[in-house]
């Protein structure tokens, strides 16, 4: 096992990365290795899919499988080794299907079919022991001795960007949105990785391409969310419990939430969001369900406490699952790409078992006093008051914007993001997205001329909204985004954040502060390279970083 795809990875003087029998996230060696092997197999699908497109074919079903499979490998998504044994078999089936199709078309057209090697012709072993031996050839750090840690780090950054973008694309797919160009982009990137690339500039260039691909993916997801549920609207959300039977929905998948809301209509069950689901309350078609009563708990890393205390079933719709504690192991359900061995899994969007559990469990016995927060400052909302915002900036009432976005985590250094929010001067506005906001979103920051100082733009995937707002402001001020009085403090944790970071960099956004700990796959040389190219910096102290930012404002 070798894995350093998330922020919590083991750090040691002898080298960073989880390489013990169990990673910090809880993923065991077998699961980690099987995930690597499955990704190797996905490269084989990509190899043939890319070549099929040259014959005018559109292997969209294989792409859908690829997105799902990639998503299962994100941090805190699927820990079920037996699921990966199955997925590896399915991967080979898809690859063989595309291969046969490709070779038939080539023959039909009198063209010599390429004889692909590596993942293109790999045969999964029939036993677990055999798969584990094969997995050694699929490890991310396989050629460390030959190519060095910088190239391995760049390959990793590219792969993690692909994984993050795939997760976002999967969310869009669940809402019925797909794009052939995006599918082709994933195929090309995985096909490129299958070549064992060793040129640093080429790898960096591909990372930027993935950043651009992810920009398209996020635009598609934005269209999927707003197209399915309406544009975000400002809404207050109750953080307190309401008497009655209850279901808690965590993760990111709004489609699952919508289905559950539909299936629980009129049953007297209250639905609560958790973690990254909070922004659901901003979408008109979701908030229209009267039994979507509020948000319970905070960010993902607090789920042991939140879930233990919740008196109903919990539905985990996408990433952020940590090992379910015995206190709620019997009443947590997974769906979609998520999984934990021995935990009930919902297939096909039928939430009847969750509903049955909700009716059997006690629910909340009494109401708690209302505690309201405001959400819904997606791009449409903010653009709707763009004139007021621009006037406030011109008048000096708003001197600076801080975008504090990304995932939360358990590391102590993450207080940085709380401190930035709390210490940001009164004449500044804080834009936030992702679950990092739970560190400060119940704090009253007041307003500037009626514009709230804290604007919650949504999930981490709503980084697209933030980019649109920044672009609109830049246009209004006739300057570049980098010239705006805007500082980006990005709290990265896993691969979705890597994809967003690559998007921001590919858009030429400079001076991002990344923290609380820098990615382990970024070697000192790579950091220097990114620092030089994009002025990418590690988070410092909140006070100093705010002071630096305000100099920009002055």
């Amino acid at each position, binding site marked *: 096992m070798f894995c350093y795809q998330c922020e919590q990875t083991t750090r040691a003087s002898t080298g960073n990365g989880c390489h013990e029998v169990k990673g910090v996230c809880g993923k*065991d060696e*077998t*699961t980690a290795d099987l995930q690597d092997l499955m990704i190797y197999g996905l490269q084989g699908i990509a190899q043939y899919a890319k070549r099929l497109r040259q014959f005018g074919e559109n292997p969209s079903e294989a792409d859908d499988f690829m997105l799902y499979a990639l998503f299962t490998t994100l941090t805190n998504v699927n*820990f*079920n*080794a*037996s699921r990966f*044994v199955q997925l590896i078999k399915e991967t080979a089936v898809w690859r063989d299907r595309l291969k046969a199709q490709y070779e038939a078309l080539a023959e039909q057209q009198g063209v010599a079919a390429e004889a692909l090697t590596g993942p293109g012709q790999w045969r999964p072993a029939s036993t*677990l022991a055999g798969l584990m031996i094969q997995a050694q050839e699929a490890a991310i750090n396989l050629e460390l001795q030959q190519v060095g840690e910088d190239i391995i780090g760049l390959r990793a950054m590219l792969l993690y960007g692909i994984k993050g973008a795939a997760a976002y694309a999967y969310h869009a797919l669940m809402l019925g949105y797909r794009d052939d160009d995006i599918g082709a982009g994933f195929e090309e990137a995985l096909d490129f990785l299958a070549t064992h690339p060793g040129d640093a500039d080429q790898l960096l260039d591909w990372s930027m391409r993935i950043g651009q691909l992810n920009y398209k993916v996020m635009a598609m997801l934005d269209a999927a969310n707003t197209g399915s549920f309406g544009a975000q609207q400002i809404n207050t959300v109750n953080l307190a419990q309401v008497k009655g039977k209850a279901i808690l929905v965590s993760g990111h998948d709004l489609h699952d939430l919508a289905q559950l809301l539909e299936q629980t209509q009129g049953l007297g069950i209250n639905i609560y969001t958790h973690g990254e689901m909070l922004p659901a309350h901003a979408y008109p078609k979701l908030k229209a369900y009267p039994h979507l009563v509020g948000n319970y708990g905070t960010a993902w890393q607090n789920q042991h406490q939140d879930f233990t205390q919740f*008196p109903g079933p919990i539905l985990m719709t996408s990433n952020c699952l940590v*090992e379910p*504690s*015995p206190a709620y*192991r*019997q*009443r947590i359900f997974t769906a979609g790409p998520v999984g934990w*061995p*021995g935990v*009930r*899994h919902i297939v096909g969007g039928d939430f009847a078992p969750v509903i*049955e*559990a909700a*009716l*059997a*469990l*006690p*629910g909340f016995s009494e109401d708690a006093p209302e505690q309201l927060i405001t959400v819904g400052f997606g791009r449409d909302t903010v653009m709707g008051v763009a004139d007021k915002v621009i006037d406030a900036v011109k008048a000096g009432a708003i001197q600076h914007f801080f975008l504090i976005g990304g995932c939360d985590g358990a590391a102590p250094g993450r207080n940085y993001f709380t401190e930035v929010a709390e210490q940001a001067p009164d004449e500044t506005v804080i834009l936030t997205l992702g679950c990092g906001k739970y560190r400060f979103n119940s704090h009253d920051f007041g307003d500037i001329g009626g514009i709230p100082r804290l604007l919650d733009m949504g999930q981490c995937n709503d980084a697209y909204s933030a980019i649109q707002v920044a672009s609109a402001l830049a246009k209004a001020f006739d300057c570049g985004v980098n010239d705006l009085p805007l500082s980006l403090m990005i709290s990265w944790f896993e691969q979705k954040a890597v994809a967003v970071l690559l998007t921001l960099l590919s858009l030429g956004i400079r001076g991002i502060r990344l923290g609380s700990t820098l990615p382990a796959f970024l070697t000192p040389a790579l950091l220097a390279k990114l620092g030089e190219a994009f002025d990418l910096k590690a988070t410092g102290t909140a006070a100093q970083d705010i002071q630096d930012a305000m100099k920009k404002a002055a």
Partner: protein
Amino acid sequence: MSEHQITLTTRDGHEVTFSCGDSFDVVSAGEQAAILLPSLCRDGGCGACVGHCAEGEYTLGEHNAGVLSEAAVSGRDVLLCRTYPQSDLKITAPYDYAHIHFGHCEARNAVITGLKTIADRTVRIRLSWQDEEGGKAVEFEPGQCMELEIPDTGIRRAYSLANTGNWRGELEFLIRLQPEGRFSGYLSRGAEVGQILKVYGPSGAFGLQSDSLNPAVFIAGGTGLAPFLSMLRRLAEWGEDRSIHLLFGVNRESELFYIDELDRLKQQLPGLSVTLCVWKPEPDWSGFSGTPAEALQHYLQDHPGDYDIYLCGPPLLVTAATQVALARGIAEQRIFSEKFG
């Protein structure tokens, strides 16, 4: 009374500390501190709480030599329910941190909904939550047990659940009638449908290693089938397809039960195969003649490989089957057992 610090290290490396007076056993002291350590009989009889004392002085109370041999005692293995500290102790426990329940063990009332003799000396008792305050959910891991209290006596006995966690409030137990057993006496003479019992739990650390990809062999002696039924029923509910061979043994054919249910489970679980073992069969018996430990010997001989071995039944069977598995090269840490009787 002196208080001593108990430091318990679980199988997965977590530490749990609490204090224990020298007149208390470790399990009881944990309970007082709202730390419920997995245990079954609490009487030195079942071996569910075998640990190893790495440091400190203690007194080991009376116990069944079948679950803790003299050699094991000399090697400082202990039964936590019979360990009385004389100093601070450092003990390694045979279960993971996740199996420890933090909180007090509360009783719930359940009504007897079914009571049936299903084989010689074997009774199936079905219960349903009576009180609605805590909701209808029955939550436990397959392999766990609950304690049933004989009405108006305060006497409790732990039995494995044979059904799976459910939202209908249903509990099912398979109980072998023991000639001198208090609960057996109650079942034979006093129990009837409609009566209310107090139920405590769940508890216990026996259960499926859900993260393992090894094929499994389940070895059940008599009502030791109960936790395996629970596991198989759960696997069937969730459509899991792991390879499992069940060796179910009794002394005589008249003691066999749930054969139809096992056939039904085989339909739902393509990876399940079953060998019925009768120690003293009638001449026309077509299954395996002998004990499940002997059947295991044959099975491992015919199907060599890595297995997870699960054992539940009387101590003699568990010990014999464990020795068979070890002799066939199964790693000790891949053998999971629960003894009763």
